[in-house]
């Protein structure tokens, strides 16, 4: 039963301990600043970084429908206030997942996406009882070619998984560089979940290998994709995934400089929603598509998921919140009451509650629905390309987390809810959302 251990490959940690960091560190840091390739465009349609959900498709045997996704694991840079990629400070070094084409060869996938990570990981939008295949390809790290870290996908909260698909390398498998592995899931329970890499989890999750996966209820008997759960009380008109994270830039910088980090020293200095820190949380899809300023140009191919919440008056807005930071958060909505209808991919039923501040801990999820108030020109607001709006703020109540490291002024985990004035003919000014987090006006292709 116990086999003799073969001589271990040198792990990164051994490598670090042997003190080779000096010369290589300089060489790699140099390349990080100088050899950024032009970024591959996100889909030119303005579609953000998420998986299209065609809805369930009947299989000939009447069983389940099939989804097939392709994920790549690689590295890249994050743009934060005070840490712009094109600035002397440089962007924040990240790991993460990118969405690729199922038909691409491993070589083509590496060619297209190695070193071009997006944050957060793709939003995975699936339907109950729909078979989901995710082929994970380890693209390797552009900035750290010396690292041979494997990766996994752990669907956090998935009920009764087979251990091989639970993505924990110590109790199943992990995927080495330049290899594919097919993860398979048959989601039986609707709700908002999350997923992340579980290989050296403390490091890889903080480095950005995490995202939101949600399961729509099986349609039928009046239940549509516009219900969070198979219950009419969870109907919504528009939905937003909000992934909460912290960033401690020291381990990120250390990794880029080929240095270690003692994880019990973790102390974040940025707080982000969908990988964006205020004021970046207010950019729309259109701002990014048009590259309205240098920040938008940086966010476009790095942090393409909007954190801005738009609504027409009277609409029910679903917030699918999950936290994969290591701190506990209290997220406060100012001026609008929220109803928490789901927690940890479980319909709360009689335990649903109304609140203005939602506690959410690491690895927890909440589904909250609010009704957008009527538009009132006398209330605070503004005008953007979608029209005149009233503004409501959604923010972390811990005001120490409303900063960007040492930058002056407001920052961090805060965004806006914009409720738009109807058109002159009283029709709603925002069209129907085609995918989660979509903002308007839609960029022209």
């Amino acid at each position, binding site marked *: 039963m116990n086999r003799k251990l073969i001589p*271990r490959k040198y792990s990164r940690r051994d490598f670090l301990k042997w003190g080779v960091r000096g010369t290589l560190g300089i060489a790699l840091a140099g390349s990080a600043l100088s050899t950024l390739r032009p970024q591959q465009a996100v889909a030119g349609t303005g579609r953000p970084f998420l998986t299209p959900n065609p809805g369930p498709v009947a299989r000939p045997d009447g069983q389940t429908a099939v989804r097939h996704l392709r994920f790549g694991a690689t590295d890249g840079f994050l743009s934060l206030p005070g840490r712009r990629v094109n600035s002397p400070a440089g962007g924040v070094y990240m790991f993460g997942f990118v969405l690729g084409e199922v038909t691409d060869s491993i070589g083509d996938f590496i060619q297209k996406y190695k070193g071009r990570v997006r944050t957060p990981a793709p939003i995975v939008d699936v339907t109950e009882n729909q078979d989901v295949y995710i082929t994970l390809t380890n693209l390797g790290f552009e900035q750290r070619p010396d690292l041979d870290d494997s990766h996994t996908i752990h669907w956090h909260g998935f009920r*009764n998984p087979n*251990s091989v698909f639970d993505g924990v390398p110590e109790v*199943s498998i992990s995927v080495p560089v330049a290899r594919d592995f097919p993860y398979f899931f048959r989601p039986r329970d609707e709700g908002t979940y999350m997923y992340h890499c579980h290989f050296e989890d403390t490091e890889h*999750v903080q480095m950005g290998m995490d995202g939101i996966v949600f399961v729509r209820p099986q349609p039928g008997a009046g239940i549509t994709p516009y219900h969070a759960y198979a219950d009419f009380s969870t109907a919504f008109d528009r939905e937003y995934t909000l992934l909460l994270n912290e960033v401690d830039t020291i381990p990120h910088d250390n990794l880029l400089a080929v240095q270690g980090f*003692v994880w019990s020293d973790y102390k974040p200095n940025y707080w982000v929603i969908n990988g964006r820190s205020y004021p970046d949380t207010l950019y729309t899809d259109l701002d990014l598509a048009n590259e309205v300023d240098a920040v938008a140009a940086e966010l476009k191919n790095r942090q393409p998921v909007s954190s801005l919440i738009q609504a027409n008056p009277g609409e029910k807005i679903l917030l699918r919140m999950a936290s994969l930071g290591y701190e506990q958060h209290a997220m406060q909505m100012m001026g609008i009451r929220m109803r928490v209808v789901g927690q940890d991919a479980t319909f709360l039923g009689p335990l649903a509650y109304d609140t203005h501040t939602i506690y959410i801990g690491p690895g927890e999820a909440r589904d909250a629905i609010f009704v957008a108030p009527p538009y009132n020109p006398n209330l605070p607001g503004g005008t953007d390309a979608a029209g005149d709006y009233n503004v409501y703020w959604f923010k972390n109540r811990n005001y120490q987390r409303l900063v960007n490291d040492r930058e002056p002024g407001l920052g961090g985990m805060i965004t806006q809810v914009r409720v738009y004035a109807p058109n002159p003919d009283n029709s709603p000014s925002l069209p129907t959302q085609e995918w989660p987090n979509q903002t308007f006006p839609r960029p022209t292709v």
Partner: protein
Amino acid sequence: MLRKRLKWSVLGLLALVVGLLSATRPGSVFGGPTFAPAALPNIGLVCTTGSVSGTQVVFNLTTATGFYSGPDGNQVFMWGFGDADSGGAFQMPGPVLCVHEGDTVTINLTNTLPDPVSLVFPGQENVAAAGDQQGLFTWEAAANTGSASYTFTAGHPGTFLYESGTQPYKQIQMGLYGMLVVRPAMGDNFAYNDPDTQFRNEFMLLLHEIDPELHARVERGEPYIVSERHDRYWTINGRSMPDLIADNFVDWLKGQPYGALVRVEAGDSLPVLLRFANAGWENHPFHPHGNHMTVIARDGQPLPQKFQNFTTTIGSGQAYDLLFRWDNVEAWDVSANPLPVPMPPAGPFPDRQNVVYKDGVTFYSGNPYLGEGGATAYQDSFPPGTTVFNECGEFYFPWHSHALDEVQNFDEGFGGMLTLVRVDPPGGCP
């Protein structure tokens, strides 16, 4: 600081202990309906029952000094409670005091530490106390040789903490805490007087943190400045991963007698009960892999409406009772109901070129089907040199704090506040 690494080979030994001894001596596996203390379980909750006379239960505790032994080899000075009725040796956490609803419980405390010490029982009411001196919260046993005594009626069933009521910022951190279990009238295999709280087995998961530097200051008699606290170790039942998946009472963890490996059988008609309590100062978001948990009680109070979740944040000082089960929902079978892989465009599954076993060590059986693979299949399933801890195709899932900076032993990952649940195929391993 002395730092040395626990080698996976040591983990191998303990996995063998967990995997094989419990299988070959089924009588010793914890889970009998009576929880007789005579046959100590190798995993699961270990009750200390005290001297029982009718509904009068008496425990005799003593304070003692000892060490937390970390998986990285570090030894951290601790204070703890010992069971004076069985020698009073240092242990952390303290003995698990198990009583029954309605019992009159007396705990006599003898002190050996250089500070006065006392006991408080959050969740218990009308606790009568006597001792050498009156402290801030309760009567105390004087430093070095003092004694104190506490008596209360265990009014309602549940999971509770007991801990020092003197300088808690120092003494609880140093290890003066333990669990109190009050069993309901309905029976010892129920959590509460509610038929829906019946369980097959029960497990303690008692959370805590350690700052080795502060402990060293106590050991050296230097000033203890709690505002400088910086945790480096995170424990369940006084142990850190991987030590905590070793059996109860392994002789190389003398002062840390309680393991935290959880074991269930797929499709069992009854769930297992997890008695969580947080003796630490931080709130810990505890995340089970494998299935949701059913939350049945908080702080010894059954919830009017049970609910399920995939993370329970156990607040500092809080206790949660959770039920867990695992069902082979899809019933994948290698011939009758095969996994729908291979899938295009990848090759056959598992294509062994496409996977690695981290550090050449795994708890995976080499076969994705529950109850398949295992000891006889290793030859064909793994690259040469892989060390495999799997008996008969059982599944393992980690349970851990999702504040992932807490799954460390100082700076080594897959450590700290992380344990495993073992899911056996129906009927167990042959």
